[in-house]
Every structure is written in structure tokens, then in C-alpha cells.
């Protein structure tokens, strides 16, 4: 079996630059491949990559540990309330009360309780879907609405993707440059930064550029929605010596197909070469 082992993380500081467009199409042109959706607050890859057979889709519920406090054993000493750095426990009517969505599952309360009044229970915070779509293994994480942190869901889907070490894996990251992004790129071999041709795009490109520099991973930029005229993001790449892996032109047809959640490299063959070129440039950069 040929070794196609490559883990590519696709990210962008700003939302809506075309991260998912680049991710799903890269997965398509490198098929057989794995697509991992780490944008768990807004998991959108699933709409572009529909399951071949909906019945074969498996859904795993993702749970975190939370404390359960036995009100009979608890003597109201407050040790747990005082230990919790996340203020997930309040002291009400002489007993600790848990706010489950604030709990970080550190297990500290259970450790400090001298009476053994705290035991572990589980709480669902999201899910991970796993299915095949036209030669692509799709692993898609989704955080439940109302939750504050998607990190446990991201960790879980990345762990599933580690079962495929020989394959080309494309990781669709959340927008921004916060902890969830660091989590998503932690095991990547290469980072693709997708940028728009606006001053907003260039400003956010700078932010993710600093992030990937900190992570010490090789990276390159894909310029999306390129039009005639000034491209501040392209200038940024030139000024900082960042390799440009490819340019995707602004094209109303790409916009139209994407708005219908159609895979452009399949439905609009003229665009396939953009993604093939990006993939081949990634392989060249990784080989350096």
C-alpha cells in the first residue's frame, strides 16, 4: 500500500474566507483521504460531503466527566467550592451546587473532598459522525448548542483520525487564533492559511501567521476570491516571504455552487486544477 501519510490543517483568522471550500476540495482531489471537521461550533463539511449510505453513518456521543455530590455525605465544608478555579461550584443553602456547563472536568473537587461525597458522572456535550463519502472518510465533530467549549469534541475527532496514519488527512479548523485552533493543528504536518483579498483578510492572516510561527509547523497561503485590483493578503505574503500555494479566483459560479453545498471540483471541473495544484505545492513544501 502506498504511503500517502500527510496531515494538513486548513485555517484562517477570519471566518468565511473559504476554509471549508479548500478543505473539502483538497480531500476530494487527494481521495482516498480523510476529512476531519474540527469547526465543531459550525460543522459545515458534512453538507458538501454527503454519506454514500446514510445507514452506514455512525454517531458517537461525546461525554465529559462531571462531579455528582451526594447531599447526605456532604457536610458543607466548602473545600470543593473553594478549590474550583472555574467557579463551576457555588455554595447555596449550605451545600455545593454544580453549574455543569462551566465545569472543565478537572476532577479537583473530587480529590479535595475528604468525605468522599463526590463521584463522577458523564454529561454529553457533542457528537462525532463517521461515514464514507465518495472515497473520503468523513469524521465530523459537532458541539451541542449552549455549550461553551468545543475542545473535548475536537480532541475526540482528532483521536479518531489518528486511526488512519497512512492516509492523507485534511483537518478543517475553527476560525480565529484561540486555543481551539492550537488544539486542531497540534498533530498537523503542514498548515494551509486561507486568506481573502481585503484589509480584514490581511489583518487576520497576520494573526494566524503568528500562530503558526509559534507552533513551528511549515505552512503556506491559499489566496481565495482573487479579483482584479489590490490584494492586501498577497502583499502580506510577499513581504513576509510566505509561499503562496495557489490562487482561487472570485467566480460567481463557485459562489453559487458553494451556496448549494456542492463540491466545486466535482461539479465544475474547471476548478479541480486549482485544488490539485494546491495539493502538489503542499507536497513539495513538506518534502523540503
Amino acid at each position, binding site marked *: 500500500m502506498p504511503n500517502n501519510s500527510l496531515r494538513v490543517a486548513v485555517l484562517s483568522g477570519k*471566518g468565511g474566507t473559504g476554509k471549508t471550500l479548500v478543505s473539502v476540495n483538497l480531500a476530494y482531489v487527494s481521495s482516498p483521504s480523510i476529512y476531519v471537521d474540527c469547526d465543531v461550533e*459550525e460543522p459545515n463539511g458534512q453538507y458538501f460531503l454527503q454519506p454514500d449510505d446514510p445507514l452506514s453513518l455512525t454517531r458517537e456521543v461525546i461525554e465529559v466527566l462531571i462531579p455528582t455530590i451526594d447531599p447526605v455525605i456532604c457536610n458543607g465544608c466548602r473545600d470543593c467550592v473553594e478549590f474550583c478555579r472555574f467557579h463551576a461550584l457555588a455554595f447555596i443553602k449550605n451545600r455545593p451546587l454544580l453549574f455543569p456547563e462551566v465545569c472543565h472536568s478537572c*476532577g479537583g473537587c473530587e*480529590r479535595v473532598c475528604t468525605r468522599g461525597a463526590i463521584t463522577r458522572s458523564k454529561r454529553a456535550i457533542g457528537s462525532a459522525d463517521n461515514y464514507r463519502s465518495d472515497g473520503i472518510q468523513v469524521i465530523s465533530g459537532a458541539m451541542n448548542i449552549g455549550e461553551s467549549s468545543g475542545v473535548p469534541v475536537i480532541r475526540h475527532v482528532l483521536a479518531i483520525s489518528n486511526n488512519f496514519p497512512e492516509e492523507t488527512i485534511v483537518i478543517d479548523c475553527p476560525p480565529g487564533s*484561540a486555543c481551539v*485552533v492550537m488544539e486542531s493543528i497540534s498533530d498537523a504536518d503542514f498548515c494551509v492559511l486561507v486568506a481573502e483579498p481585503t484589509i480584514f483578510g490581511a489583518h487576520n492572516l497576520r494573526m494566524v501567521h503568528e500562530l503558526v510561527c509559534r507552533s513551528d509547523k511549515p505552512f503556506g497561503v491559499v489566496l481565495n476570491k482573487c479579483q482584479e485590483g489590490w490584494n492586501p493578503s498577497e502583499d502580506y505574503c510577499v513581504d513576509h516571504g510566505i509561499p503562496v500555494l495557489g490562487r482561487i479566483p472570485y467566480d460567481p459560479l463557485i459562489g453559487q455552487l458553494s451556496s448549494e453545498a456542492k463540491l466545486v471540483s466535482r461539479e465544475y471541473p474547471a476548478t479541480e486544477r486549482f485544488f490539485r495544484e494546491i495539493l502538489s505545492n503542499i507536497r513539495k513544501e513538506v518534502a523540503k
Partner: protein
Amino acid sequence: MKKLLILSGKGGTGKTTIAGAFVHLSGAPAVADCDVDAPNLHLILHDEVEPIREEFCGMNKFVIEDSLCIRCGACLEACRFDAIQRNTKGIYAIQVDACEGCAVCAYVCPVQAIREKEHIAGDLLLSISDRRVFSTAELRRGGGTSGRLVTEVKNRLFARTSEDSPIAIIDGSPGIGCPVIASISGVDMVLIVAEPSVTGISDLTRIVKTARGLGTRIAICVNRFDSNLNKTSEIESYCREENLSFVGRIPYDPEVVGAVNRGLTIVEADCEAAVAVRKVYEETMQCLGLKEI
């Protein structure tokens, strides 16, 4: 003071473009950018004053004092975040990005070799000009606790502006997680900028449920509505079914990119989108119970 928050669920729908236009049209004396991950609003507001910068300490993190460490491994065992690693020389260290600051490692250490350390999660920026108070922040790369940073951005804004001011305009962040939840708390209304696409509608329903869960009033507009007319009518029917105020549609207009790149708000450019944004603005103000500002 009425507090209007602009959100989108999905990124890149035009949140900041519309927030900038609203700031220009209303002359709002209180403005905040809560997209601490990727703040952009300042790029089109041009408050020509040097912002007051203040470091923001999030949760304290922990470090192992190697000279005291007896290499027992209790901390590594106890850490639920896999933040502690043992290198080939047997030295234990805490990875700062993975550490969530829970303090369990320090608690289990039998020789008190682990101590707390302040951690700067971001920088708060406050600009006070003749026209307005503008509060924002930049999260340091890879930082956590952005919800608390967002809360601080709003607190600093409201501490500096009078309750008698007619309106505060707050630009939010994409997604539905902690920074978004923190930005919603205490606002009078959320204006959601939707995108007419399959994924845009999915993200719209997720942000609507999030905002509803917090009991906030919601208005919706569609940006680049003509890029998919079917999806635009789908959003309009969704609003009717869900009883959400629909405040207008804005066409795709190549002038928008031009205006942004000249550092202008869209209403300063003479174009079709600007006319539509004005109408959305008027409708939104009516929903908020503000006739004229």
C-alpha cells in the same frame, strides 16, 4: 442605552461591514469589537487616538520547579488535560497552551514543586475620541478564556459611557461558543447577518437557538441575498415561522471590497449595498424602539 450586538454564526457573512456602517449612521458614542480572535472593526473606524492598552490576565497557569521536583509523576497522572509531559531525561514540564489552570497538579504534588504563574491571555484596548468610546481586545495567539476577555471588553466600554447615551453597537465573533455567549449577555437585541447558503442556514439556526436560550431578542438580515435567491426566501420563511424580525436584504456589491480596502464603511461609498444597509439600519432601529438618532 440600547445595546445592539451584531452576530452571524458563520464567519465572513459581513458582520463587521454592517457594524461599521451602523456606527457611521448612528454616530453611536459607545462601540465595541468583541471578536477578540480576529478584531477588524478598528480598520474602518479610524479613531485617530492612541488606544489605552492594558494586559489581561486570564486564568493563572502552573509551572514545575525542576529543582524541587522528585519525579514521582503524580502530577502527570492527575492532569486531565494531558498538559504535563516527561521528557527523555525524565524531567517533567507543563505545556502552557494545554494547561487550563485547574490547580490539580499543585494539589497532588507531595513536595510543593508546582507553583502558580500569572498568564497574560490578551490585551485590552480602549480608544476615547471626540466621537466615541471604542473598546476592543486582542487575544494572544493560542490563548484561552476568551469569554472572560469579551466580558471585560464590554465592562470597560460601559464603565466609560453614560447610561443616557442612546445606543451602543457591539461587533461579535463567529461561532456559538464561550465568546459568543459572553457577548450576548446583557444586550437588548442581537442582529444576525445571515448568508443565503446551505451552510449559512445551518449556522443561522444554531446561533438563533443559542441566543434564544439566553432569552435575547433577535432580528435577522440577509447579506449578498442575490447570490442565492432560493436560500434567501428560505431564510425569510424561517424568520416568519420562528417569529423573528426580518429587517432586510443587502445585495452582493463589488464596491464593498473596494470600500473596505480604502478603509471606509460601506455607507461612505455611493453604491447599491449602501442604500440597502441604510434601510436595514432604519428597520433595526425601529425594532429597538429608537426612531431617530
